[in-house]
């Protein structure tokens, strides 16, 4: 135990020192700390000035009881589904995750496996408790404030219940994982039985809920019925206790009794499962090897802030070996081939996003159709499209920075710097155009009221606007290419957003003057908008081309 404590202690002290020493890490840390502090102070002040329940109280007790039971049902379903997913995973992939240094240097030492496990579990428990407590303060306190109550003291019951439940689930998951890694064959039937039970419980509640919704159309009562279905209530009884205890502050507000017996039961479960886990004699190191390496790679990709690396990692996870579905016919030579490659990579890396771009707009249109007055929306159409252009162009920047990782290859190609940058901008613009067209197209299809020249004009205009915006975001990407450097990331994002904002100005000014003040027709307004955006876009590309010509790819 002593060496493990030494390890934890030194690592903690050193990382604090390391943060304090480098301004690059210190500044973001201070920001986060200041933010958290401000939030907590605000919460404390809120609590101090909180009106007594008697003063305002509940408007009508009936309605709040209804909401309370709804929240209870929602929390219960969330907890049960989450638990089911957790336990399911335990059968296939390892659940105990150690760091790679642990695997390399701690596992071979004669420190007993039980101490290592104990230390790891305690560490995890503390981490989860802090998360839960943080979440309770950040979310629970304002909610309780608006309800006219206070998080203290019964919020502590909620936290205690959630922590106990989480520990219980984690311990059970680890235990199952260990047993099934080593005695896979022996307990085959048991494994299948557990899986069937879980599926049955979840399925029963889904069926009940869906059936209820189909027959009554009332979402909240369906939710409650789904949570009340007897199978799920029995299988996930601890989740039920926990979800009712989460609401303790509200329960107290409603002057009902808090079930401390259930809290006690949850802690007993947590403790018993903890002892069961610690008493396992199997080699707990083994199941953790594979998954730990995977997690470490993921973290690495995440830390480097490289979206592409992350995606590559998940593709690897899924075992994507061949390009099969992700095929894209080749075209072009020279710069055009580069365009093809960019489109292909983008398509392979983010076809999920692309599907989203294609299907989300119609879904949104259909969903909000009943809620909004279309005539009003129509007037805002230009703003919606401007906003879309803005959003879509912001997403291009990470892609360009990922591309710059291969700058030494790009620079070695017999393609002019200007052309390379142009291709980067164009491949972003093509996807932006697709997204915008999907949105406009679905409006056209599903909402007859929007079939006007305004829609056409806005679509064309926003594609050109997108071109200008993307061209603007490429400049900071070239200036600050290193995604591993937090300071560069911050500057790059800030500069990108501000440049895009600048690029938006001419369009907005022209639109307001010509379209709103002078009341020209949409088609007339869009022509100068397109022209000015094209000029802006090419100007941006010119600047980027000049930067790229002097770009030093040996940066890393």
């Amino acid at each position, binding site marked *: 135990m*002593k*060496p493990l404590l*030494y*390890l934890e202690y*030194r*690592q903690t002290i*050193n*990382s604090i020192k*390391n943060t304090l020493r480098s301004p690059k890490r210190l500044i973001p840390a201070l920001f986060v700390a200041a933010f958290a502090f401000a939030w907590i102070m605000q919460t404390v002040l809120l609590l101090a000035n909180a009106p007594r329940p008697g003063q305002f109280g509940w408007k009508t007790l009936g309605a709040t009881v209804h909401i309370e039971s709804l929240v209870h049902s929602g929390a219960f379903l969330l907890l049960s589904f989450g638990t089911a997913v957790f336990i399911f995973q335990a059968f296939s992939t390892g659940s105990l995750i150690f760091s*790679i*240094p642990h*695997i*390399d*240097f*701690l*596992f*071979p*030492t*004669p*420190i*007993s496996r039980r101490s290592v496990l104990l230390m790891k579990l305690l560490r995890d428990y503390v981490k989860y408790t802090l998360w839960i407590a943080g979440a309770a303060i950040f979310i629970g306190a304002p909610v309780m404030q608006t309800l006219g109550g206070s998080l203290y003291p019964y919020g502590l019951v909620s936290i205690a219940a959630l922590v106990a439940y989480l520990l219980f689930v984690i311990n059970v998951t680890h235990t199952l994982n260990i047993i099934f*890694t*080593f005695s*896979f064959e022996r307990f085959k039937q048991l494994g299948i039985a557990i899986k069937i039970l879980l599926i049955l419980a979840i399925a029963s509640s889904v069926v009940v809920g869906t059936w209820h919704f189909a027959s009554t159309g009332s979402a909240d009562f369906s939710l409650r019925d789904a949570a009340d279905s007897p199978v799920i209530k029995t299988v996930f009884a601890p989740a039920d206790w926990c979800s009712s205890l989460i609401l303790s502050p509200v329960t107290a507000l409603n002057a009902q009794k808090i079930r401390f017996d259930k809290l006690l039961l949850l802690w007993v479960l947590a403790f018993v499962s903890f002892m069961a886990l610690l008493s396992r004699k*199997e*080699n707990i*190191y*083994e199941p953790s*090897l594979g998954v730990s390496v995977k997690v470490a790679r993921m973290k690495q990709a995440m830390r480097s802030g490289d979206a592409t690396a992350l995606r590559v990692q998940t593709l690897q996870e899924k075992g994507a070996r061949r390009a099969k579905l992700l095929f894209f016919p080749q075209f072009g030579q020279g710069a055009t081939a580069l365009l093809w490659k960019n489109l292909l990579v983008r398509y392979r890396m983010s076809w999920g996003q692309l599907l989203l771009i294609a299907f989300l707009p119609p879904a949104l249109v259909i969903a909000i159709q009943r809620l909004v007055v279309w005539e009003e929306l129509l007037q805002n159409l230009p703003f919606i499209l401007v906003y879309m252009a803005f959003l879509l162009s912001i997403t291009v920047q990470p892609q360009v920075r990922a591309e710059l990782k291969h700058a030494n290859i790009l620079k070695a190609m017999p393609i002019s710097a200007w052309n390379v940058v142009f291709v980067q901008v164009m491949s972003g613009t093509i996807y932006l155009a697709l997204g915008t067209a999907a949105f406009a197209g679905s409006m056209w299809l599903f909402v007859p009221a929007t079939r006007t020249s305004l829609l056409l004009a806005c679509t064309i205009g926003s594609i050109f606007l997108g071109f200008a915006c993307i061209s603007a975001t490429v400049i900071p990407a070239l200036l600050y290419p290193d995604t591993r450097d937090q300071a560069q990331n911050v500057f790059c994002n800030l500069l990108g957003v501000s440049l895009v904002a600048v690029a938006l100005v001419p369009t907005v000014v022209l639109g307001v003057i010509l379209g709103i003040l002078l009341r020209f027709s949409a088609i007339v307004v869009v022509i100068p908008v397109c022209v000015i955006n094209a000029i802006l876009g090419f100007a941006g590309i010119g600047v980027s081309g000049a930067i790229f010509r002097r770009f030093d790819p040996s940066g890393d």
Partner: protein
Amino acid sequence: MLKVDGLVKYYRKTLAVDGISFTVNDGEIVGLVGPNGAGKTTVLRCVTGIVQMTQGRIEVDGVDLEINEEAVKRLIAFVPEVPSPYEMLTVYEHLRFIAMAYKTLGNFDERAYELMQRFDLYDRRNDFVLSLSKGMKQKLAIACAFVHDARAILLDEPLIGIDPKGAKELKNMILDTKQRKGSVLISTHMLDTAEHLCDRIIIIQKGTIIAEGTLEELHQSAKMGRDASLEDVFLSLTEESKVIEATSVS
């Protein structure tokens, strides 16, 4: 003395090691060579108790791994393949942590000084491991293996990425261990090093031993001349067993 007897290892359903037996005597250096995925790392991991063997017996100086794992681990030192040490420790602290883990803090400071000098880490002793180069991390991992007086030293690809001086020091340390009558097991792809450093060589493929012995004995089993290098022997033997397999299948 390290004794491995009938070692079988399944990772769930994949067979990684299929019945391997060998002995590394006191004062002997044995090389474990084989193509990628042959099971070298798995053998070393079984011996160090990082993974649980499915079948077999492993003994170090007569102590059974299954019966007294901690005692066996105390007798062993292990240098992992492409090690990644704790980044948030300093070089000195890292060595100290290892010494604590093996309960050999006794003459730690002299020992650490000597090791850091040998592997050119002394100037960096108060730097975070984070700031070390890849080769320096490898050297640190090697230094960690020599912090305690292990009876058996297992090294997984120890020579990758270290400079000639580091490699020379490592070889000296290994020869020292041999002098002290320790047992050394090295898994490696660097056949010329294996040829010069090792007393005996075990060639494994697909989890089984296909040849074992001194260089001379290997020459004989491959039916090759005395002047053939280990590389030739290795290629000939591993190809040969593939051919045998192919014919036995058809």
